[in-house]
């Protein structure tokens, strides 16, 4: 249905030129799901956007290529002709349903818009059709939500609206750009299922762009792997997963967290005891019980996984432990010190022993401080070393986290996401803490980088003798690093189990649902 040949797209700015897509050829068959896989910057999105003229030119430029869509070369069409195809024959679903719907327009209007524009139908007809589709994509009670604004819907529901909007003109091809990346894992599973169902029912072709092979493992028919603007391998799903021929594909597959940590039941004493912890926000009827009566222990040297979806309170627990947010009630005992009631001076000492690594290494590092300054601050503040020896200590830290020594004077924006997370880990380890909260430390990273950072954290954990609370929404990741796992749901712990037991013998219904939702479950080792 779609045959792309020798497509090259480049970007030209004052900073220089980059070849985003380099001589790419691929085909998409009607009635199949074709996944385009690649890490950030691999050109997967640019390649698809350029087919529809959605790459801003300038700075973008389509250098060469043809894209035959049912006999028409999309790249040779004028903007006017292309507009007739966009949204009618080829529709798109984007990554973040929070930002991709117009917040000032009701979803009903947004749904009807492409239908009325392309087919000139009346408002009444458009409304009927929109309501039908809302029903079909699983939006409850379409009649009463038709005139609602996007902010009144959850992320999953918004993505359903996006999908309905894309399907309203019965397109022949749907391009879905990371359509589940911004969603919780159970919602992701639902949306994947929905896309697969709609694909068969409407017999459309789907291009599914993703950075994550495991997401498409269950739904893709064909897979195209891109790296640095080139297609390195393509073939049907089984061939890619079972006999990948290109080293990059092999690397991507190897980076998917599939294994589990081998650990024996620990007999160590608890380093941290949490009893009946509550952290509530707001007052009166607006109270949000982010953490609601939670009790657990973390043993010396243990990695405790904390798993839950967005809004489950997992980050709030991590922050409450370090008193970055005040606990409403309950006790937190760290090495026989009661944390919740501590006064400022002993608290400062305690902060040296308890550290945190945040999710987003782009936001959590001060953009105006060099690596050297970022690492020097905790070292000097807590008197770990004196000014004379600080440079030496910093170089040692940089070696430990795998940063080249000559980058010490650089600023955060000069680093990639993975390198920044190394800096953040270095900052956390600078004070030689006994306990570290790692709050989604790899969620913002590409899969291959994610694997490296996880490896680094496990090694450093051993070397520094760390006890760790590892917070993540991703069960496959937690399974690789944690000894024990807590499952959190709406502020409460619903299950606590040793890592392996959780995956083979989950007791709680919500845990089971989470496990079912893991994308590419079939890839995980030792799971039936």
């Amino acid at each position, binding site marked *: 249905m779609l045959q792309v040949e020798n497509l090259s797209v480049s970007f030209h700015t004052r900073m220089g030129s980059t070849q985003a897509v380099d001589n790419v050829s691929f085909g998409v068959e009607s009635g199949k799901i074709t996944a385009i896989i690649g890490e950030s910057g691999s050109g997967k999105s640019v390649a698809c956007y350029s087919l*529809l003229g*959605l790459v801003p030119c300038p700075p973008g430029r389509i250098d060469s290529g043809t894209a035959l869509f049912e006999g028409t070369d999309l790249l040779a069409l004028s903007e006017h002709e292309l*507009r*007739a*195809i*966009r*949204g*009618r024959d080829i*529709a*798109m679903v*984007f990554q*973040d349903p929070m*930002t*991709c*719907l*117009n*917040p*000032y*327009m009701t979803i009903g209007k947004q749904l009807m*818009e*492409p239908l009325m*524009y*392309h087919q000139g139908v009346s408002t009444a007809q458009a409304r009927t059709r929109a309501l039908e589709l809302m029903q079909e994509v699983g939006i409850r009670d379409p009649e009463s939500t038709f005139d609602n*604004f996007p*902010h*009144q819907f959850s992320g999953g529901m918004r993505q359903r609206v*996006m999908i309905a*909007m894309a399907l309203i003109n019965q397109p022949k091809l749907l391009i879905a750009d990371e359509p589940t990346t911004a969603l919780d894992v159970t919602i992701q599973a639902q949306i994947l299922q929905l896309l697969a169902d709609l694909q068969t029912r409407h017999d459309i072709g789907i291009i599914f762009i993703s950075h994550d092979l495991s997401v498409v493992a269950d739904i893709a028919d064909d897979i195209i792997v891109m790296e640095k603007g080139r297609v390195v391998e393509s073939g049907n799903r089984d061939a890619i997963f079972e006999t990948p021929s290109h080293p990059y594909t092999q690397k991507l597959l190897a980076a998917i967290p599939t294994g589990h940590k081998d650990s024996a039941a620990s007999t160590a004493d608890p380093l941290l005891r949490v009893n009946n912890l509550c952290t509530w926000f707001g007052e009166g009827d607006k109270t949000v019980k982010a953490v609601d009566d939670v009790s657990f222990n973390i043993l010396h040297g243990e990695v405790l996984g904390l798993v839950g979806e967005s809004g489950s309170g997992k980050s709030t627990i991590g922050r409450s432990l370090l008193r970055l947010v005040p606990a409403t009630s309950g006790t937190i005992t760290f090495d026989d010190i009661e944390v919740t009631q501590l006064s400022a001076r002993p608290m400062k000492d305690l902060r040296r022993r308890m550290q945190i690594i945040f999710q987003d290494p782009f936001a959590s590092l001060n953009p105006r401080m060099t690596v050297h300054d970022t690492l020097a601050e905790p070292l000097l503040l807590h008197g770990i070393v004196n000014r004379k020896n600080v440079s030496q200590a910093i170089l040692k830290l940089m070696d430990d986290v795998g940063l080249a020594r000559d980058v010490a004077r650089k600023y955060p924006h000069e680093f990639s996401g993975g390198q920044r997370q190394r800096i953040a880990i270095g900052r956390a380890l600078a004070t030689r803490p006994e306990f570290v909260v790692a709050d989604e430390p790899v969620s913002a990273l590409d899969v291959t980088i994610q694997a490296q950072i996880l490896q680094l954290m496990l090694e450093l954990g051993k070397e520094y003798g760390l006890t760790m609370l590892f917070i993540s929404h991703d069960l496959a990741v937690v399974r690789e690093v944690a000894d024990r796992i807590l499952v959190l749901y709406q502020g409460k712990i619903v299950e606590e189990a040793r890592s392996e037991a959780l995956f083979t013998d989950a007791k709680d219904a919500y845990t089971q649902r989470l496990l079912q939702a893991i994308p590419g479950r079939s890839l995980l080792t030792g799971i039936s």
Partner: protein
Amino acid sequence: MWRFIGIRLLQAIPVIIAVVTVTFFLVRVAPGGPFDGEKAVMPEVKAALEAQYRLDQPMLQQYAAYMGDLARGDLGPSFKYPGRSVNELIAAGLPVTAELGLYALLVAVIIGGLAGVIASLKPNTAQDYIPMSAAMIGICMPSFLLGPILLLVFGIYLEWLPVSGWGDIPGDKILPAITLGSTYAAYIARLSRAGMLEVLNQDYIRTARAKGLPEWQIVVKHGLRGGMIPVVAFLGPAFAGVLAGSFVVETIFQIPGLGRFYVQAAFNRDYTMILGTTVFLSTLIVLFNLLSDILAAWMNPRLRAQFGKR
């Protein structure tokens, strides 16, 4: 919503009291008084006049009396226009100034909004630089310079438009409105450019493109609503500013509005007139700020929902 309005109105009371108090004592500190004219006045006559207007009483007592009157909405008698109250004088000047202000704002919104939107469509090209440079000139050009220039070019050399008056000859309202509105047009151009640029880079604009909508529909239907919120928020302070700042234009074009009364009152040491106009304008500023805040919030569905809940 009502709670929010109520709180804002209550907050306005101390602001206005502070404005009145400071103005009251400031005008008294200035040398001279309302009856120190060039013509010598007999001491007995002056004393009688001062007694009539309570000027012989101690300052604090005068202040208390004025505040008492003010609380009843009475701004007192004018010193310079015997027999007329400040309320009457404001009522006479206000319609003219309000009309002038309204036209000026219309000019500002249309010209400024258009320039800003046009500039935002192709940032950092000639289509952006030309209107934005014009806006910069508009901000820098004081109305006492722009007014006479327009007057010379369109009134005297080209003889297209009348040079003075208000509502006497058709077209005599055009030049004052442009003169007064140009500064605000320039601010609005910059605000709407920034607002539109931000909105046009949002993901939902890409969604609209992917729907196949033509560019003008994307800008009008998906862009303007969000992009104009900062402009709406600015309109309140702008309208108050237009009212307060109209005296230069009113003087240039001989318009009998509030602004001219205000300036004359200051020269004449017409204490009650100065105070009255100040109180009136500061109340308007507070009210219009509130109004535009409400309007801007209303335009954002998320904030509107919060309003409903309160």
